């Protein structure tokens, strides 16, 4: 709870910092705030408590996922340095929006009541609608914001409708009571309403985590949104979304497993297919990462479907952590490269290994991790999610996912090939400018990925 309070208060403080005429203070200030929140959050590890008449529970589950989203933001923020240098007018507001949106993310991982879930999603989404359009003078950014806002509003409406129907069928918003309501024979006649409600809720959440067939906004919005915010969207929003989703399935809908497992399986297969096959066809790295983000939603879904208690929760935690770190690294490199070279396609990476060995190395580690190759966290992320599913007998689904991850190797190798094996198009190309601090963060990201890949035991057992 301290983290929510701190974020809200310090978010406002940060907003007022914007009145100072200097932009230089904003980045360090935001980092200090996030570091404070990260520390305060960890203090709740052994202090499980509920708030607001059991509407919100801060337990290890929520602390762990809050840790991921705050850490992701903290590691990402140094790459907004260009905005500081360019004297971006509204920078304080953007940082504050990120801080506020984290409040929404935390609510999504610690809710015990569907209303809190809804409020959390809304807090997160509204901030995202704004940052998607933050590059005001860019047509594509405007388009992205409008598209995201319209689609997102529909999705929220559908989600709310779903919540209402579930309430109608079970008479409660409280997760554990919903589960009890489902098995209560007195509610048997209300089953169709329950199922429709669940379905609508799934649609709403699938939209937020960009799972097919509700993914169609993702590539365009990711592409139009400034890269810095795209990275935030594809890590924080996804992590919070899946943590919230898992809680919903595990605590509220577990009794109706027979109904939703086939539904989610169809979504998973479709998501994996569209994400991976779609990514193959892209010529822009940013769009490739957008499709890759769709495909990773598919892998996470496998752990959801398993609803394998601690095994699944641990798998989702580990996967989200490994995925977030690798994705931030990839987007960070992409941002640095595309800011300077003014292009986001694969050829923009040509010869990067020669001019910027560090950037090339970090990008390589990130790509290998996303592809799930050993020595990186991504390998064990897939390993644990697939393991949780095989343990429950979903062998066919896992085989399909393995085949799809074979496809993914094709597009994750392309930036590596461009960086190491293609000569730069312009032989006199200047190295991409990277500050010492950014280099340090990049090294940290690569190091974390390797640590996750070599000593997965450190993080694979957070929920006992």
């Amino acid at each position: 709870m301290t983290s929510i309070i701190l974020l809200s208060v310090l978010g406002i403080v940060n907003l007022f910092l914007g009145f100072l005429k200097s932009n230089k203070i904003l980045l360090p200030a935001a980092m200090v705030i996030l570091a404070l929140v990260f520390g305060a959050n960890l203090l709740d590890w052994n202090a499980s408590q509920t708030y607001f008449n059991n509407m919100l529970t801060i337990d290890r589950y929520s602390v762990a996922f809050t840790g991921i989203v705050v850490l992701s933001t903290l590691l990402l923020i140094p790459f907004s340095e260009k905005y500081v240098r360019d004297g971006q007018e509204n920078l304080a507001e953007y940082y504050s929006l990120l801080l506020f949106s984290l409040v929404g993310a935390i609510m999504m991982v610690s809710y015990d009541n569907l209303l809190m879930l809804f409020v959390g999603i809304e807090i997160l989404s509204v901030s995202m609608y704004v940052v998607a359009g933050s590059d005001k003078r860019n047509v594509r950014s405007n388009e992205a914001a409008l598209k995201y806002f319209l689609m997102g509003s529909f999705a929220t409406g559908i989600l709310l409708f779903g919540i209402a129907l579930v309430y109608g069928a079970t008479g409660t918003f409280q997760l554990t009571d919903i589960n009890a309501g489902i098995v209560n024979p007195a509610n048997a006649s209300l089953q169709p309403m329950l199922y429709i409600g669940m379905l609508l809720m799934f649609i709403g959440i699938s939209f937020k985590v960009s799972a097919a067939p509700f993914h169609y906004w993702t590539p365009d919005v990711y592409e139009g949104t400034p890269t810095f915010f795209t990275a935030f969207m594809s890590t924080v929003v996804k992590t919070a979304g899946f943590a919230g989703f898992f809680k919903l399935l595990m605590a509220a809908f577990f009794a109706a497993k027979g109904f939703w497992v086939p539904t989610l399986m169809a979504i998973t297969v479709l998501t994996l297919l569209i994400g991976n096959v779609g990514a193959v066809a892209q010529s822009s790295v940013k769009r490739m990462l957008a499709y890759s983000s769709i495909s990773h939603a598919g892998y996470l879904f496998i752990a959801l479907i398993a609803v394998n208690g601690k095994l699944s929760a641990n798998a989702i935690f580990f996967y989200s952590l490994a995925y977030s770190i690798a994705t931030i690294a990839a987007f960070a490199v992409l941002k640095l490269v595309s800011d300077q070279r003014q292009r986001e396609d694969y050829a923009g990476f040509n010869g990067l290994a020669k001019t910027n060995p560090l950037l090339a190395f970090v990008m390589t580690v990130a790509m290998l991790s996303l592809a799930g190759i050993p020595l990186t966290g991504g390998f064990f992320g897939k390993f644990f999610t697939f393991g949780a599913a095989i343990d429950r007998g979903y062998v066919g689904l896992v085989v399909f996912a393995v085949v799809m991850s074979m496809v993914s190797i094709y597009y994750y190798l392309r930036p590596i090939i461009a960086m190491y094996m293609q000569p730069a198009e312009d032989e006199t190309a200047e190295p991409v400018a990277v500050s010492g601090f950014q280099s340090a963060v990049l090294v940290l990201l690569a190091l974390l990925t390797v640590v996750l890949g070599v000593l997965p035991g450190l993080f694979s057992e957070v929920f006992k």
Partner: protein
Amino acid sequence: MLTAFLLFFPVAAALLLHFAKGNAARVMALGAALVEFAVAVFAAVTAASNMTPGNSEAAYSTFVVNIPWIASAGINFHIGMDGLSLLLVLLTTFLVPLIILASFRHDYPNASAFYALILFMQTGLIGVFVSLDAFLFYFFWEVALIPIYFLAGVWGSERRIAVTFKFFLYTIIGSLFMLAAFVYLYFQTGANGAVRSSDIAAFYNLTLTASQQAWVFWLIFIAFAVKMPIFPFHTWQPDTYTESPVPATMLLSGIMLKMGIYGTLRWLLPIVPLGTSQWGKLVMILAVIGIIYGAIIAIRQRDMKRLIAYSSLSHVGLMAAGVFSLTFMGLQGAVIQMLAHGVNVVGMFFIGDIIQRRTGTRQIAELGGLTKHTPLLSVCFLVLLLGTVALPLTNGFVGEFLLLAGVYQYNMWLGAVAGVTIILAAVYLLRMFQRVMLGPETSFTSTIQDLTGSELAVLVPLIVLVFWIGLFPNTFLRISEPAVLQILTLVGKR
């Protein structure tokens, strides 16, 4: 602890190499590789001194390290060496310094990264040979792939990108099947409420039905078949060998190929003996096809490097056939042939590289009459070549004799067909020798120089081994015998 040192020393050295530049990087890398070899020899001597008659396991027990890795899942960092592992570790640590030395004449750009990758690769290879936990094995299996991909892709010749990409896709897709099988087996160890474990012993103790073994066999086999490669999984091989820089080709053919044979011996046969007996015959036929096919295509090659690549394809087919014959002779033959082939093929590629560097061409038709100017080179080439042709008293003879005897024991007809390989090898190799080294000089070869000191330093140890293995094969066969017998026991053929 010796095993852990052997495993981690190269990668530690690779990290340090980052601080060295150019020439210093080479020398450091060579130094590290020599230290590694010395430690491996020390390990072999230790094992030999601990050896008591009739109890081979005690000799190797000091090599075992077993600590929890992902404790909750029953996955351990379990490494160790028996005779089989020890031989392959010796081969790896013996060849890597020679490979590094062989590359001294080339001026590879960004040398520190180049040599760091070779050392990194060494850790991956040794990891494969010493892992006693399925996931650890898979881990190193894939780790070995990353450096070789970059070695071939960054420093290779023109068509390198498409070729290494194909190589990467082939091998990684193959290994993903193996991973699927391991995950399946891992969950089988948890049947009836037992604690799950990915330890090799737990996998050996599984009692799978014949139908389960039938498909698990294929999942694992494909990964090994691609790596070896066995016909028809070989299509990446000639291109990759040709387009890679010489040190990478040497690593691929000299050591990495043995990962597949070793994997078959250690992880495939004992875990799915029923699957092996069900499908073994088909694999034998594929292997024998590969032997003949590789040899026939080798005859038609005009490029020296490609010719050696296809000859390697043919030889590995024979090793695979020997393994699947499931006879004592076949397995022992495969082990000794792994060593012999490693020595010979690395030497042959090196000589091909020397000739190319001096003359600027690898085309057999453009070469000729080298012997007149380069007697030393000629002698070295001939020795290695005769080793490959399996002339008696050379290393190749011991291996091929045992292998063919094993295959013959399994099936007379297959043995007879596989035996043709010796004739065919003589045809393509002697023809190459004749056309490159003898005959009239060409404009390319009239000014060629003989071997330098550092080149001799690479070739002499190789030639010593050609004769050592050829004259005293028991030095090595004795080491692998207990391990081979144990595998045969597990397969139920003894």
